[in-house]
């Protein structure tokens, strides 16, 4: 019963989201794309968090996907749509290789290292003038799908759908048991037969791949990027804040957080052009102080309270 209701709600949301371009102009669609991008990043970040690993490297993998896609088009003459696929896979392959090093680390050592990796990617692309265009960045010959706003929207929606689908699979497969067991106690997980490194590597590679995919979609939708745009720290910080606001360790939490904060930040940007980030920061601090388990946790407590 509850499951049927969830499926129905998801189906309705999918239909509404798919037909949105028929009713909205270019600006709202642009905002929607931004929200969906952050939402996908927030969900992907949370997917790894379910294993207890806090990544600060979202921007790094997002930027890597962006540059991979842009450079595949510019330097290899690849078709933009095809470049999305290859850039996504390339980011995944790089994350897989890096996983062997960074997944030996835990807690803040893991977090700091992922942060450093993002910075290393940025600096490398910043300095490889001839290959990456250096600090000026890269300009593509054109925007994907001729820049048609509905097409760009649907592309971003497709990226989000892939991410949400993967997260949904994570929650319902044995990955859920493996990652939660690892998060709670690695020693006891090992004694139950969980190959910890294998599952961390799967989670890290998959979530990095998704982040790279969103980066590739982003760069093809704007037609240009620079190291500072592609590796913008906001791509790490905003998804993190959204997941915390909505409630971590679930798919629904980061979705709710992204809708709220995404729209709030857009609105604040218009209302308080020079101080919107301050207000944004205050919101995050209040949320963490007042509802550490996020909106989803709050709703769950409320429901539990009523039942009792």
């Amino acid at each position, binding site marked *: 019963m509850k499951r049927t209701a969830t499926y129905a709600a998801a189906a309705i949301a999918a239909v509404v989201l798919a037909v949105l371009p028929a009713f909205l102009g270019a600006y709202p669609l642009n905002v929607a794309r931004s929200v969906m991008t952050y939402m996908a990043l927030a969900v992907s970040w949370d997917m790894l968090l379910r294993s207890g690993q806090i990544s600060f490297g979202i921007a790094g993998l997002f930027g890597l996907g962006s540059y991979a896609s842009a450079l595949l088009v510019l330097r290899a003459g690849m078709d933009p749509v095809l470049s999305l696929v290859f850039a996504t896979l390339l980011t995944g392959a790089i994350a897989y290789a890096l996983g062997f090093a960074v997944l030996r680390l835990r807690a803040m050592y893991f977090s700091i290292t992922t942060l450093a990796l993002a910075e290393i990617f940025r600096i490398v692309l910043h300095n490889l003038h001839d290959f990456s265009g250096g600090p000026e960045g890269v300009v593509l010959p054109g925007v994907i799908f001729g820049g048609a706003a509905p097409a760009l929207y649907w592309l971003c929606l497709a990226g989000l759908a892939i991410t949400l689908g993967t997260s949904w699979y994570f929650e319902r*497969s044995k990955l859920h*048991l493996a990652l*939660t067991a690892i998060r*709670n106690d690695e*020693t006891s997980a090992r*004694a139950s*037969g969980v190959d910890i490194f294998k599952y961390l590597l799967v989670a890290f590679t998959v979530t990095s791949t998704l982040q790279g995919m969103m980066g590739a979609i982003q760069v093809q939708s704007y037609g240009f990027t620079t190291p500072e745009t592609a590796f913008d720290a906001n791509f790490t910080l905003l998804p993190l804040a959204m997941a915390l606001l909505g409630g971590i360790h679930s798919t629904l939490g980061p979705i709710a957080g992204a809708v709220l904060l995404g729209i709030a930040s857009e609105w604040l940007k218009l209302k308080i052009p020079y101080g919107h980030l301050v207000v944004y920061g205050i919101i995050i601090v209040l949320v963490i102080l007042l509802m550490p388990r996020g909106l989803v946790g709050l709703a769950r407590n409320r429901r539990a309270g009523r039942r009792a």
Partner: protein
Amino acid sequence: MKTLQTEHLTKRFLGLVAVNDVSFSLDAGEILGIIGPNGAGKTTFIHLVSGILMPTSGKVLFKGRDVSYAPAHERARMGIARTFQLIHPLENLTVLENVMIGAVFSRRQSLREARRSAEGICESLQLGDLGRDTASLSILEIKKMEIARALANGPEVLFLDEVMAGLNADETRQMISMVKAIAKERGLAVGVVEHVMGVIRELTERVIVLESGELIAEGPYSEVSKNPRVIEAYLGGAA
């Protein structure tokens, strides 16, 4: 061939020798007590056998096969299971999900199969309401769940690290008969670490005594408890 055997098993932490040259064996259908004063190396010994720690030297043989350096998750899959002295129930999972983990990852069952086998195990341990959060469990229920988690691996060898600690007399009696029944039904080789000598006397046919990492005595509890070295280890030089 013994189900489980160690040969000259030794674990050194820098200067400290936590387990020193311990050779023992454990057979199917047998319940062995592992006793010794605090810090004798009992838990370290179980860590070595289950692969949570790797030995400095010596061997662990499971059904004749050298598994001394096999990772813990592989040993779990082969059939070596254990509980933990310091219990860490998985908070964000239900009782049933906690127990399913061993079935999914050690026995490679599908989620559906694992659910069914976990339900069976929990039922045999009289663990009710499996949809509960582990936060609401009593100590007895947590201990039972720990055993259920270990049994879900489908083990041939089971080590219980102080599963009676914190239980009252009634609960302890209940646990003793439960462990006996499980061992018999499943033909398990069971190793029990316990501080309460009454439990050891009731439960085990044979004990090994560790002191400062060394095996100092072996035999039925009635004999070992009269051994002067054992009495000295427990009571100190004054005895």
